[in-house]
């Protein structure tokens, strides 16, 4: 048994409480790319957009195409059959973002514009 737990010794858990209703926008080029990527699996798969601590500016974006998560902690938006999932924990950080896609050889790929960010890293992956 360690000093930090057991034996009737428990500490209060700190949880994220700031949950907002998420509304995001997707540009035509991003939607086209999402449709291409997820084609044929629209019912079973989705795009999960999330944030995690780290990066140069405080938080890092993360985007994954994956099987629809079973958790009820996600807010879901449907864009012409493509579902975008955002977890409640990320709702305050990601509400209002615009998903864009740039089809260029240098610096191409998905790009996120975030109205909640007061700064962003040059590579576009980190914000704060």
């Amino acid at each position, binding site marked *: *048994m*360690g*000093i*930090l*737990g057991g034996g009737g*010794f428990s*500490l*209060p*858990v*700190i*949880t*994220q409480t*700031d949950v907002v209703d998420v509304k995001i926008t997707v540009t035509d080029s991003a939607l086209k790319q999402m449709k291409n990527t997820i084609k044929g699996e629209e019912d079973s798969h989705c795009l*999960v957009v*999330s*944030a*995690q*601590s*780290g*990066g*140069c*500016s*405080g*938080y*890092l974006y*993360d985007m994954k195409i994956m099987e629809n998560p079973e*958790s009820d*902690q996600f807010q879901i938006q449907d864009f012409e059959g493509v579902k975008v999932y955002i*977890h409640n*924990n*990320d709702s*305050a*950080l990601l509400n209002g973002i615009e998903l864009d896609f740039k089809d260029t050889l240098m610096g191409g790929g998905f790009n996120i514009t975030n109205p909640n960010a007061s*700064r962003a*890293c040059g590579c576009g992956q*980190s914000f*704060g």
Partner: protein
Amino acid sequence: MIKLQSNNTNCKYYIQKCSVTVVEGKDSVSHINRIITSNISNISDLEYCESLICDANGKIIDAIEISNISEQLLILGIPRSAGKTRELIVSGIHWNEEVKIMNGDGALSIITIFGDNIEEIKKILGEDNVNQKIGIWKEVNNYYTLNIDLKLDAQVNILIQNNSIEEFTKTIILQGVKLSDKDTWDIHRIRNGILSEQEYNQGFLPAELALDKIVDLKKGCYPGQEIHARLESRGKVSKKIMRYSTDSQIDIGTYKSDTGRKIRITSNVNGKGLAVVSVKEKNLINLDDKISLITEEL
């Protein structure tokens, strides 16, 4: 248990003020590692390490001590920075990660026993109750001990539940260990180059406080890393922390030297203290109000 042996000791104890956060879950190390300046990806059981949490401008928000105890990370920080630090830790948990954050304020404390040499402290706590190895906790009944690496003196930190403090301190007082007042503690930390809230809370960069050793520029991105990397590659740190002594009365605050450069006095006890000064200053600094400081590297 501590054995009563002798009451002839110069050792003192001081109860440190710190915020206590406990992080558990299989992803706790990788989660915390993304936020801090040092690399704890390989932290082993009972290992202790120092680190910093910085803002995007590279300035220090919190100075933390991280320990891996029984698969939980114990994070001790500056009380005034606890809110910011916990907000950062809690808000940045990836939805797919297993991380639980707990507030240990008021439940756990650090008692520091300090003196001239480690053998004297070992006599008080028991030879087998302090690790000879620096920076590794040792479990002793209802508390843990940690042998701290200091330049001049010896120091052992005790991690203890608050409800056991009274019993523990009674035992060491019986051994002759006296409660240290703030000034005596400050003299000890100034002498040994231990920084405190007074230094950390001024918005300095790690290099300005000679904390480069706990900044790992090879571990990947963390908040402030861009600034730290640029400073390191260009070598343009303009000020640094020094230990000073003076015969004059001086208070904590900002002064100007006779060269016109700013001097920030961050700690002072009886004419000895710590100051952040321009790297261009010589070891004898004359302030414009006729005070002279003799400075040396930490």
